[in-house]
């Protein structure tokens, strides 16, 4: 009987710890800039900025919309369309809408950064009309950055949306508030045969909407979505691909200005990432960089002593992403330049 009581208490303690852990990001104040009439309007249209602020922030992290990645995997509250006027936006952009890892308590990037004491601002296009990563990066982001009060801003490029950050960083006059930037799964140089741009072109000529099943081996989506973990767990799930793929930069020289900035950059790439493979990320640095530029890199792979070789979506979805990748970002952001 005593044993039972102890066991029951032990169970309750464990349950409490579990719940506290799972809900620890409830303390985050989420402030919708649009509701408070603080929406940012740029020359190319409105950019939506969602802020996840913490009190006594150590600094701000500005992320640009990762495009391909389901937003829920950046923050749990983002499981509804961010842009009510454009209901197709998220549904079309969601790849794994039916697929969730069983681990509901998995780490997600924005709460993780909040817990480390950083306010996070997630920037997205208001709608997809004339959507251009280039225009957003070269024209829109500077207004958003000017609105952020923190004096220390870290830019984060996640997935393909990171190209907007790259355009901004390559421009001549970046804000002195920007000291660091990281790119996670962002291809910066697709100028080679067999690149993602080539592959998309081949498919898009045949069909506009790319829809496929994982069990169909020989098609683009299956080949790009390389997650063995997901394939094993959901062998027959259909994957809906976005019917609007952002226009990616063909000319990497437009990003070469980044390497001449007085800036510290962390690039993270998954070894099995076929959307933004390592050669599309590191290609930007083949010709070296300026004196004020510091390059850090993280290969998410077994050769970095990680549990497995990461693919593109593993960087955002995998249950080990928090412990193996976000922790590196958190530590790196915290270090003085």
């Amino acid at each position, binding site marked *: 009987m005593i044993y039972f009581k102890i066991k029951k208490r032990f169970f309750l303690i464990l349950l409490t710890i579990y719940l506290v852990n799972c809900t620890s990001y409830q303390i985050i104040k989420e402030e919708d800039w649009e509701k408070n009439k603080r929406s940012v309007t740029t020359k190319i249209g409105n950019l939506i900025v969602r802020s996840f602020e913490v009190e006594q922030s150590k600094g701000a992290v500005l992320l640009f919309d990762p495009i391909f990645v389901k937003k829920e995997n950046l923050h749990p509250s983002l499981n509804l369309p961010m842009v009510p006027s454009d209901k197709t936006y998220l549904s079309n952009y969601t790849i794994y809408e039916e697929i969730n890892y069983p681990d509901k308590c998995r780490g997600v990037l924005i709460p993780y950064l909040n817990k480390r004491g950083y306010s996070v601002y997630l920037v997205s296009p208001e709608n997809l009309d004339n959507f251009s990563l280039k225009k957003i990066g070269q024209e829109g982001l500077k207004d958003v950055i000017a609105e952020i009060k923190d004096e220390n801003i870290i830019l984060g490029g996640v997935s393909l949306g990171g190209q907007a950050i790259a355009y901004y960083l390559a421009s001549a006059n970046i804000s002195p508030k920007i000291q660091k930037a990281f790119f996670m799964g962002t291809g910066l140089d697709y100028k080679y045969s067999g690149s993602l741009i080539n592959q998309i072109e081949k498919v898009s000529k045949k069909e506009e909407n790319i829809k496929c099943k994982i069990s169909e081996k020989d098609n683009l989506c299956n080949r790009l979505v390389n997650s063995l973990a997901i394939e094993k767990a959901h062998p027959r799930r259909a994957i809906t691909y976005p019917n609007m793929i952002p226009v990616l930069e063909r000319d990497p020289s437009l990003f070469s200005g980044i390497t001449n900035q007085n800036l510290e950059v962390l690039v993270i790439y998954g070894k099995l990432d*076929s959307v933004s*493979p390592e*050669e599309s*990320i590191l*290609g930007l640095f083949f010709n070296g960089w300026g004196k004020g530029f510091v390059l850090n890199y993280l*290969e998410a792979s*077994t050769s970095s*002593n990680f549990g497995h070789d990461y693919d593109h979506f593993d960087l955002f979805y995998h249950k080990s992403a928090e412990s193996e990748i976000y922790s590196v970002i958190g530590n790196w952001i915290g270090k003085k330049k």
Partner: protein
Amino acid sequence: MNKIKIIFLGLLFLVSCSSIKIKGENKIIQTKDGWKIGIEKFEAFPNSTKKKNPVILCHGLMGTKEYFKQNDEESIVYQLTKEGYEVYVLDLRGRKSEGLNERGEKDSSTTPGYWFGKIYNDYSFDDYARYDVDAAITYVLAVTKAEKVNWIGHSMGGMVIYARSGSMGENRISNLVTIGSPFSFPFKPKKLDLLSLLEPPLKVLPTVPVGSLAEFSSWTPFDYYYFMSLYYYPENMDKEQVRRLTRFGANNESPKVFKQFANGMGKWNFESEDRKLKYTDQVSNITIPVLLVAGRRDHLGSPYIVRHVYEKLGSKDKTIMMISRADGHTEDYGHIDLVAGKGIVKDVVPGIISWMNERNK
């Protein structure tokens, strides 16, 4: 007594399982600096359409020519001969085959010794490129009467041609295929830090005893996954292939070669031993057709490094062939499985042969 018999038979069975069945004609050739190196000739299939130039296959760092053959009929050697190529599989200096004469008998006078012997593992990467490659091409051209050779190099076996053609003026190669060949090491995989453990013993040992350790490991029941996963993707190699690889395909290496690689870590340039030649920069002098084969899971000849070489090559005719699921192959390939893995006949070899055939009409 019966137990001993069973154990003996069991061992015999294991040994017979781990033998490589395809065998060519072994020759020992001499380099200009006096080393004797082994080369094994495989005739093209009698009923095949003979191709223009012969092929020389060259292994990588710490490797031997045996791993090109270890899949027997599923090997790249067999498939090339079936396609009509006369194939010569080269052992660079210091390999096990040099311990044999042409009749396959032991010849202790040509076996590199640890402390005692006539010759030692005291050569550099430059010696491979300058002398061994030269001897191999000279020999093959002499016996085949061809004007040029095709060169297929795995890992360092491709690097020696990047160095020789780019920096030493080699012009007897018609087409080059490199498989998982890096030519700079700007970002070192963390696991390679393990190699730093070798530094203290290397100050005492006159050789890097990788081959001896690998052979020993093949007789133990452990898989050494943590370290070996750097070299191959386990899904692509079955146990027998790993056993053959460690027993026949690995070799002791010269400390000087290792040091040269260590000096290149963290740099965009691979240099000569005296550091006067910037080999990587000079691949821009290479203008022959080049096929660069890369494995998505390769941690040593990583795809970004392969692309780095690709960008630097002066060739107009150059192609990267990525072996990955995203490119329609059955699996993502690592470093050694690109040439010794169980799926190469389906995933790797056809692309190479097709590219070669286009240029050997």
